[in-house]
């Protein structure tokens, strides 16, 4: 076990923002923290990073209390931050220095990641005619997306063992989203530990094996994503036919979860019920274009869990 978060609690006066949260990351890979806005994701990450004092609990890294100043941690904050008026290279070197990265190593890494993230032209602008040196751009001269890339460079500059990404893909265009994803894959391939918070469920499903869903500071669902899905069973049935099958659906007592002009999204009680439904359609020679039985998506699980918890309140 490498990261262990035990019974974390945080409150501001009477307001509890984190209530006895625990989770563990056993192996390298991406761990996801999910939740609605204000659920406590950023607070959890800030406590892990030592920015915020906790009221209770502990954060262990390789069995010892995690000290972010001594542990090699990288962080991409939810709200992006760069000094607007300072040169990009100066501030990247500053962040590297604070992480005790030697200057020449820092320069090599900045060059590598700037190249990977296609921001070399801003960090190391080409020399202009008549000038011996070129001046690195300032942050306020960059677009939001490019600033985000430079911040990812800052997060990766120390080659961190533990990388914490708070909403890393928010606000990115599809091209840059793919670029960020490729870098996350690269870090996974290097056996790094990543914690990621995101609202983008497909991204979480793409990268994460283990998740915690938070609602109002409490964990409402935790565990391995595949196991969670298996636990729900394959209860989502998508049927597409050339003819109207409404009468079959009602005769089988199936619930319609959604409907498009040509496709039904049905909820079945078991796989057997779905098979019986399929047999009936075939026997009656109903032309079937699509018949797909699958587990619920993370999005559906999230809505169910967070919705349930909010209804209980």
């Amino acid at each position, binding site marked *: 076990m490498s990261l262990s978060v035990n019974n974390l609690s945080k409150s501001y*006066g009477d307001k509890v923002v984190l209530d006895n949260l625990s989770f563990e990351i056993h192996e390298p890979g991406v761990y996801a923290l999910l939740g609605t806005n204000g659920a406590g994701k950023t607070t959890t990450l800030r406590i892990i990073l030592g920015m915020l004092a906790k009221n209770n609990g502990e954060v262990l890294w390789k069995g010892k209390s995690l000290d972010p100043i001594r542990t090699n941690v990288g962080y991409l904050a939810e*709200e992006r931050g760069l000094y607007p008026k300072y040169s990009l290279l100066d501030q990247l070197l500053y962040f590297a220095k604070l992480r005790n990265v030697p200057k020449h190593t820092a320069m090599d890494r900045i060059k590598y990641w700037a190249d990977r993230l296609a921001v070399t032209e801003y960090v190391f602008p080409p020399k202009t005619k008549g000038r011996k040196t070129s001046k690195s751009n300032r942050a306020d001269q960059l677009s939001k997306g490019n600033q985000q890339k430079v911040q990812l460079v800052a997060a990766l500059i120390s080659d961190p063992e533990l990388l914490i990404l708070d909403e890393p893909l928010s606000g990115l265009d599809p091209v840059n989203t793919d670029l960020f994803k490729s870098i996350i894959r690269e870090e996974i391939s290097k056996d790094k530990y990543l914690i990621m918070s995101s609202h983008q469920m497909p991204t979480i499903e793409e990268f994460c094996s283990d998740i915690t869903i938070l609602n109002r500071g409490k964990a409402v669902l935790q565990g391995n994503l595949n196991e969670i899905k298996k636990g729900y069973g394959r209860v989502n049935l998508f049927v597409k036919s050339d003819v109207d099958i409404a009468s079959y659906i009602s005769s089988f007592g199936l619930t319609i979860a959604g409907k498009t002009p040509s496709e039904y999204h049905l909820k079945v009680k078991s796989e057997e019920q779905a098979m019986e439904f399929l047999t009936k359609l075939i026997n009656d020679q109903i032309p079937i274009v699509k018949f797909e039985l699958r587990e619920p998506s993370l999005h559906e699980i999230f809505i169910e869990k967070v919705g349930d918890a909010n209804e209980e309140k």
Partner: protein
Amino acid sequence: MKKSNLAGWKDVFSFTLVQTLKSKAFLISYIILITLSLISMPLVNKIFNSGNEDVNAPSPIKKVYVYNSTSLQDIDFSKLLPEENMNHILFETASEEYDTLSKEVEKETTSVILTITEDSNMFSLHFLKAGKGPVKDTHIQALGNALAKQFQLLRINASGITDEQNAMLNAKIGTSVSAADVNGEIILKEDTSISMAEYWFIYGILFFVLMANMLSSTQIASSIVTEKSTRVVEYLLITVKPLALMVGKIIAMLFATLFQMVSMVIALFVSNRITSVIIPGNSSSMLEQFLPKDIFQNINIVNILLCFILVMLGMIFYATLAGLAGATVSRIEELNEGLTLFTITNLIGVYIGLGASGTLVGAGINPFVVFAFLFPLSSPFILPGAILIGKATLPLVGIAIVLELVFILLLFSFVAKIYETLILHNGNTIKLKELIHLSKTV
């Protein structure tokens, strides 16, 4: 305060200092300050000595025709003017008609007519010069002043009064009050009041410290708000503790301000030197004209060091307060509101200092002045000036430094408690009441 809380402050210090020195705002203000300092002495010289620029240069007046209708006759005018720049002037008793002579003066242009008259109340010296020519009003003024000074002595001598009698007549009359103790012994009271020149000197130092203080403190506050509003602080906080961030910033800004101020002082001295060299007839330096007479007796290493320590401690105190103010707001637009407490505290210190320096002129050192010397809010403003004019004793300065240190430590322990919470605060400006509440709950 744990030592680990300060780890990384040196990196923050070096980055902040380099970026501050490189910033356009700093460079522009630096150039303006240095330029102003360099031109200040010639400018002051021009303003205060306008018309007297050639005061030591030979007077263009060559000849003076004298009409003397007073009882003081047979005056040897050539002996009356010992000044080097005037001893070439020839005095001639006028024998022609005034109108004829005045026409001649118009032609000669370097001659003037002097008419001396007398009535029951006064002697009058009246000059007539050519409307055009090298003789200006200032030259006539200088000649008139020199003659009037000597004429006074001449008048006294003519009355048969000896030099001793004259000295007696001119002796100042002073009054003093002594008090006796219970045994009837007279308690001797030293006159501790200061001259106006000393007052203006203290005032100048106070203003200089205030300027340096405001400059560095507002820069610190604005730098902290910028890091908060741009969220850079979240990156920094995973590698350095909030207190190390603040300490690094404060020291960097103090260095930058000190660099600016020391450069300014050097530029002032350079300007002073240049003025005395390049401006003709300005043998004494401008600073000597304006500084108190005995000031250079008190300027020694120990006093300079004490002044430096006091100013630095004061700046650290106020900078910490400004840092706290910066952390209470989330946006740069709210900074003025956040700086209210800092501004009020600063003004209290400055006004107590000003009040004490005024009191020093009128009443000398009294309990209020001692309070101002020791009170940590006012001591950085008033005490450096008082040390340099020799009005603050070493034990008093020592106590003031200790009190300032205690104040800083108390403020730091308060700030250390709440700064971590404040630095990530995002919302309305936090008021003093809430700060105190926060310090109790954290």
